[in-house]
């Protein structure tokens, strides 16, 4: 036919997968308690972020949150495709990482830690604390309440990832602002 076999099979499987997801979502998720709860988590975290964020540094903090969101989405989707984990509850039926608790919490918390901790030392301590809470309190809680399913994964695997991500993103934002400063100095 029009398709070569590899892609044709992938498209058929994708069709089936999306169909199953939408079905399951309509039956078990949409307008159920967990669905409203998840929506509440997103609204709550956006609200808290907006209250706490330093408005005079908004572009910088949003850049940090945006970078965190991209990395979170990519890692979450890769883990889901590799069936390392799964998000059983979704606000929308497709692209599950988009409505996973991770996206509601990581960009917000990471960017606030970035905002409040101005030196590497305080930042690292805060990150260490955050990674510990995430891996050993929050994630088990999410598994227990069935928002998150670990398939081929252990809680402590996430620990170095959370820390590396935080360090990398802080380094990157600082670097970006340093490049801009240097470039402006040259112009003057």
């Amino acid at each position, binding site marked *: 036919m029009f398709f*070569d076999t*590899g*892609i044709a*099979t*992938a*498209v058929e*499987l*994708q*069709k*089936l*997968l*999306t169909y*199953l*997801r939408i079905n*399951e979502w309509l039956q*078990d998720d949409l307008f159920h308690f967990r669905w409203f709860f998840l929506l509440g988590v997103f609204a709550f975290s956006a609200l808290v972020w907006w209250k706490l964020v*330093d*408005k*005079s*540094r*908004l*572009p*910088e903090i*949003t*850049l940090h949150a*945006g*970078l965190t*969101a*991209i990395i979170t*989405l*990519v890692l979450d*989707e*890769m883990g*889901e*495709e*590799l*069936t390392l984990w*799964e998000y*059983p509850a979704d606000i929308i039926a*497709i*692209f599950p990482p*988009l409505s996973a608790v991770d996206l509601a919490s990581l960009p917000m918390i990471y960017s606030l830690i970035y905002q409040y901790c101005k030196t590497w030392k305080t930042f690292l301590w805060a990150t260490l604390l955050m990674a510990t809470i995430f891996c050993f309190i929050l994630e088990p809680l999410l598994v227990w309440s069935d928002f998150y*399913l670990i*398939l081929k994964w252990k809680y402590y695997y996430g620990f170095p990832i959370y820390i590396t991500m935080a360090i990398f993103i802080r380094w990157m934002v600082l670097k*970006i*602002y340093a*490049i*801009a400063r*240097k*470039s*402006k100095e040259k*112009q003057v």
Partner: protein
Amino acid sequence: MLLAVTGSAAEIEIQKMLTSVHIEKWLQEDVFQFKWWLLLGLFTLTIALWWRMLNKARIPEILLYTVLTTIVMMSIDECGEELILWVYPIYLLPVFPVITAINLLFVSLVLSLTYQYFPTWKSFSSAAIIISGLLSFIFEPALAWADFYRLLNWNYGYSFLLYIAVALFIRGVVVLIFSIAENAQRHSS
């Protein structure tokens, strides 16, 4: 048999099969083949050109635009692939193919340069329309011709409208973010 397992269990099984098809196909037909190298070259060239043209003094602002566009386009791209609107027959990496097909990178970087070069709403709107036209009626058909991109339940006209909408929306958000910051700085000083 598949119908016997319900909900999440079935989804996980299908996801497993889909990923293994992606990886299998990638190993047999894509990786280290001519088109794969071509894609890698396009990736590198796009990033290198973008970096050269980027106004470094305004890099935090332009990058904010790039990052927000990437989040929105990545979500739309993945949703469209899941809804069988389009498919990417070749990608650099077999997991999350959408991010290593060339479309996402190219569109985000081109729109961010448009943002950089056209600082007023009026000039930006006209530029956004022209650039979106080039992206959807020249760039995308070229990709489709070379089989880097296949439209299944989609057409170039939809892409055109989508790019204009995203370009204008993200500019609105970035302008708003900067005006909030300026207001806050004025109040504190």
